[in-house]
């Protein structure tokens, strides 16, 4: 270890300027969002509400109601009355698979992708420390969670406003609230959905530190997602289900009750925090102690 390296490492430790940490985060966010793959993922997510909106519009052009009898994704019967419900329908439709898959791809790629393309060691040469680099990677993934959710919500809101009337919102408890409050609730729902993705983001980051192949990390993360979803379906396995990260995903709908039913929402926040803590620290343990050869 050269003298210069030691000094810079010491300097980095002694005066970690907050702005500097921010610039690391900014460069990570830039890396994530400049990729064509990320833009394509966001494009697919934005297309889902368009698809759902047009399908509902075509089905109900003759005056019928969509999803009559309670079939189809949640909230779909309300879409024709109020375009805002397209936001909820689209989030309910993308949350089981599209959204977490996109997050799994980004999270899985975050460390392993750099390792496989050989750029990871150059990142480590910078006197930032591995912990801070990992934090920056994780924050960038979380930023993607928010961006992905907001993409779906914004696209759905736009499509809903174009194709369907907007107006007072009927909550699922049968209470009608103003459009403004409806929008606020939609924002809260988007927040809850983005929070729901924290668990898989942490899981993906951990998997990403295990391997040097980006593809393997992505596939493993998405595979874990599917496995968890399947296990969540079997009533016989109800004992483990409350600890699976997708278990409370649909709880965002509880924000649309009057009064709001907090139990599952809080359970979801706790569970996602637990996943973030366990797999975040596991990723840290792995990443800070591993040999980076590429």
């Amino acid at each position, binding site marked *: 270890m050269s003298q210069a390296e030691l000094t810079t490492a010491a300097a980095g430790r002694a005066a970690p300027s907050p702005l500097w940490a921010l610039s690391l985060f900014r460069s990570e966010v830039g890396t994530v969002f400049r990729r064509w793959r990320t833009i394509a993922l966001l494009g697919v997510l934005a297309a889902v509400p368009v698809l759902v909106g047009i399908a509902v519009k075509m089905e109900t052009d003759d005056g019928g*109601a969509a*999803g009559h009898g309670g079939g189809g994704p949640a909230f779909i019967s309300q879409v024709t009355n109020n375009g805002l419900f397209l936001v909820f329908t689209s989030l309910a439709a993308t949350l089981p698979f599209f959204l977490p898959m996109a997050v799994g791809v980004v999270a899985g790629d975050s460390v392993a992708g750099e390792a496989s393309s050989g750029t990871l060691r150059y990142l480590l*040469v910078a006197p930032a420390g591995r912990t801070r680099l990992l934090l920056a990677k994780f924050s960038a993934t979380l930023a993607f969670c928010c961006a992905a959710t907001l993409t779906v919500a914004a696209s759905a809101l736009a499509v809903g406003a174009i194709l369907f009337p907007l107006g007072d919102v009927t909550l699922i408890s*049968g209470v009608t609230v103003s459009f403004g409050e409806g929008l606020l609730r939609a924002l809260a729902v988007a927040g809850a959905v983005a929070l729901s993705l924290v668990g898989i983001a942490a899981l993906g980051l951990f998997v990403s530190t295990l391997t040097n192949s980006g593809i393997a990390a992505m596939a493993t993360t998405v595979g874990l997602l599917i496995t968890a979803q399947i296990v969540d379906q079997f009533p016989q396995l109800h004992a483990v289900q409350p600890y699976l990260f997708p278990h409370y995903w649909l709880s965002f709908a509880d924000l649309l009750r009057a009064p709001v039913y907090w139990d599952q929402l809080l359970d979801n926040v706790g569970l996602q925090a637990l996943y973030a803590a366990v797999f975040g620290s596991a990723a840290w343990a792995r990443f800070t*102690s591993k040999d980076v050869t590429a």
Partner: protein
Amino acid sequence: MARIEPTHGSDGTAGTGEGTRRPHGRRRAVRYAVPVAVAGVAAASIGIGTALASSGDPDLPKISAQDLIAKMAKSDAQQLSGTVKVTTDLGLPSLPSGLSLGDAPGGGKAGHGSAGKDAGADTSPQAKLTELASGTHTLRVAADGPDKQRLSIVERAAEYSLIRNGDQVWAYDSKSNTVHHSTAPKDAHGGNEAPQELRGASPQELAKKTLAAVDDSTSVTVDGTAKVAGRDAYQLVIKPKAAETTVGAVRIAVDAQNGVPLKFTLSPKGGGKAVVDAAFTKVGFGKPAADTFDFKPPKGAKVTEDKADGKGGKDAKGGKGAEGGHGRDGAPDLSGMNVLGKSWTSIAELKAPGGVGSGSGAKGSKDAGPAGALLDSLGSKVSGSFGSGHVFSTRLVNALVTDDGKVYVGAVTKDALIKAASK
């Protein structure tokens, strides 16, 4: 090619400042201990939380069973809001709806009589409450006096709400965006009682039904205390003495302060999980906000009006959601039905409803067609002086369907059913 290894202390956590290399394995093990510790702490706190919730029975002054029942009777808590968790496990085979044996005993026939016309998306309260007969459901209840009540069944991304305000009863199903409207009969039950469907599964209603059945064939005791929804409660245990009944015991947790039943558990004689378990997970006795009970049909929702002549049939089935809870109780209002015996061992005798559930199966069995095979697989064949028939067993209710089309249903043993049929 140079290997880049972690710089000691560069992340400010593992650094000791010595600048010397420590053995790899040990350092790694220490780091991996962090996630393991986090998971362990989480598991431990979940475990401790559960243990704390179930232990710590409150210390309350002794009370006799009579006094406790009197306390329940004169409980005047009219205002209440809370969350109820209802778990029903009759041990029914899960059948496609329409074939369900669960509603065959009490309400299968009547349900089709009054509400069968719009079977697709049935928003009527009685059809909906049938769903409560199996599985676990979360209900939110609010009440302000005898004629303002609200009950919501919390579903996955949907909700079914029943609102009573004065004589108006509204039901709203968010899944299909439909509204069902009916007018509650004033004083139909003598006094200002709410329509039964509003209360079917609440611990209060179940407790009331049970206490009505208490007589000298029943032992009633107070068995310690418990904490329910954060409130201190006495445990009232009601045990039928009759040997024929399949009801093992009914436990009711009664709020020590205001006598409101907070938890209702019915266990079968055969042991195992409770058949009905209804308990408040959260409860408050403050006045709910007035607009809780306001309901206007939302714009764009499909509204169906209930015909007034459907009333008689409806009330009979009111408690059906909790049919298992009081076995013999919801049934006697049904017209065209005999009740044999009394109290815990009463057996309902009725003509098998043609075309519905078990009835059609019974006829098919003679031809040994597919329906007959189904019947044979579900029920066990019995015979006696009444002829022959099939006995269907659940964990609580047994039913005997004779080949000549009679049905005997009760929370009694098979032998008691056969004896009743042979008379």
